[in-house]
């Protein structure tokens, strides 16, 4: 096996890495091995470097996300306003998700808790895909999920 040396790095190209990863994620649905390799090739960076960078950030998915990805803010302000875990429990119940299960059987919904979404004035907050929903109550959450289930 030949020893691979580090490729000479072009700072202007390298600085496009985060943007390129977003584009690849959109095109491939998630950052698959193929997507990572393609970004590496285009920017003249080693695939392991691309993966190392991508793995640092939470908005890059190495697995295909569900159609509706639900994020529940577990920040302090959301917790103080009856959000966070208590909303997670409601959503789990509604989607019939068991303990530790993060994705529905049909793969349409996935659930995770996230850190402060910088919307504490409308706490408690949840986010579904790119949309932020504030002042959530169990009733409002249930209605929203029912609407999405029918789609």
């Amino acid at each position: 096996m030949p020893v691979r040396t580090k490729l000479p790095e072009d700072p202007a190209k390298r600085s496009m890495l985060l943007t390129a990863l977003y584009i690849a994620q959109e095109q491939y649905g998630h950052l698959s091995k193929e997507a990572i390799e393609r970004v590496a090739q285009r920017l003249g960076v080693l695939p392991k470097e691309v993966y190392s960078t991508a793995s640092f950030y939470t908005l890059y998915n190495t697995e295909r996300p569900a159609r509706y990805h639900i994020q529940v803010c577990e920040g302090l302000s959301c917790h103080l306003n009856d959000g966070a875990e208590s909303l997670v429990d409601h959503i789990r119940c509604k989607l019939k998700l068991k303990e530790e299960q993060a994705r529905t059987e049909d793969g349409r919904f996935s659930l995770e808790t996230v850190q402060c979404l910088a919307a504490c004035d409308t706490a408690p907050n949840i986010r579904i895909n790119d949309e932020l929903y504030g002042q959530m109550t169990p009733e409002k959450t249930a209605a929203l999920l029912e609407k999405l289930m029918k789609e």
Partner: protein
Amino acid sequence: MFERILLRNVDTIGSEKIDVYLASGGYQALRRALTECKPADLIEMVQKSGLRGRGGAGFPAGVKWGFMPKSPDVTKYVCINADEGEPGTFKDRELMEKDPHQVIEGTIIASYAVDAHRAFVYIRGEFFTSVKRLIKAIADAYERGFLGKDILGSGFDLDLSVHRGAGAYICGEETALLESLEGKRGEPRKKPPYPAQVGLFRQPTLVHNVETLCNVPHIVNRGAEWYANIGTPKSTGPKIFCVSGHVNRPGNYELPLGTPLREIIHDYAGGPKNGKPIKAIIPGGSSTPMLTPAQIDTPMDFESLIAAGSMLGTGAIIVIGEGTCMVDVARRTARFFAHESCGYCTPCRVGTHHMRDILQRIEEGGGEAGDIELLEKLCDGMQGRTFCPLGDAAVAPMRSSLQLFRTEYEQHILEKKCPAA
């Protein structure tokens, strides 16, 4: 009633549009700066205004501008830190969503003052609306000749673009932000050298928080003296206070620095939610030590908060009402820092996780004698010993929680019960 300056446009319909901004006097400061002022005049003006950074550290903005090398042969950059992530903070998002041109105008003036021809907005990845509005606003600013070549016939050129972060709190730290902007893992750099000496692509770089830059057009329009008269002698100007938690009217309230906490909470944010007494107040975001209800008359400025044993931070006030478990609050905060520790240095990587695990155990009833001392020892081992300020940010709220609510911890550990439940 204080006349709002930074948030003056946010309630106008279509406030994000360039014509609405122009109709309210927008870009007049830019015209004045480019035609009537030399860069050195602007640096002096900002120094005289007393403007200090609004991202947490409170460093004098004019001094930072003065640090930038003057030689025209050196390539310089300006970065707008829009990676707002300190729990409790939501001011930059409102400024970018509702008044993006104010951010852009402040950036152009700052770039002119430090002779930079390339500027970047580094924005939190989750801020979809802000990203969309900023991109549109920048395109409109180019079309009207406020960006690009020969701005308003002054001979000054500036290009500005938006770069999305991808979910990492640490990228709000300025050197981590620069690493991320270069397309790398957002791990902080050693300081010094500071970004004004060695910044983006190893060139001198001015990094400012969104709110800081929003002040600049108003200083140019109305003068340094007018600005310095707002607030206290050492903490000048208006500040956006983000109020959340147990209050009746959470939201952003723009008031002069030095406004007492009581006034902000009771007169503006509608007082404690459901009239429940206040148990503790976080004055400047999750990384600042808590205050007690007895400290509610503390003026909200840099100096008074240090005197009170805390920090102004980002000005994010979280009100915690009676009946809240303080071990749970600490656990939640520790969980945040453990999640956001970048893992680069050992005291922070190991310390934050250890802290979270101990608090989790205490909260679940598995606390043991000696746990409080263990937490204190952990704080000693982290404070001042981590590579970047994130470690200290995790320690400050932990220490204040142990100090103020020690008996509550003891009850959890010894009696296996939560007094708040």
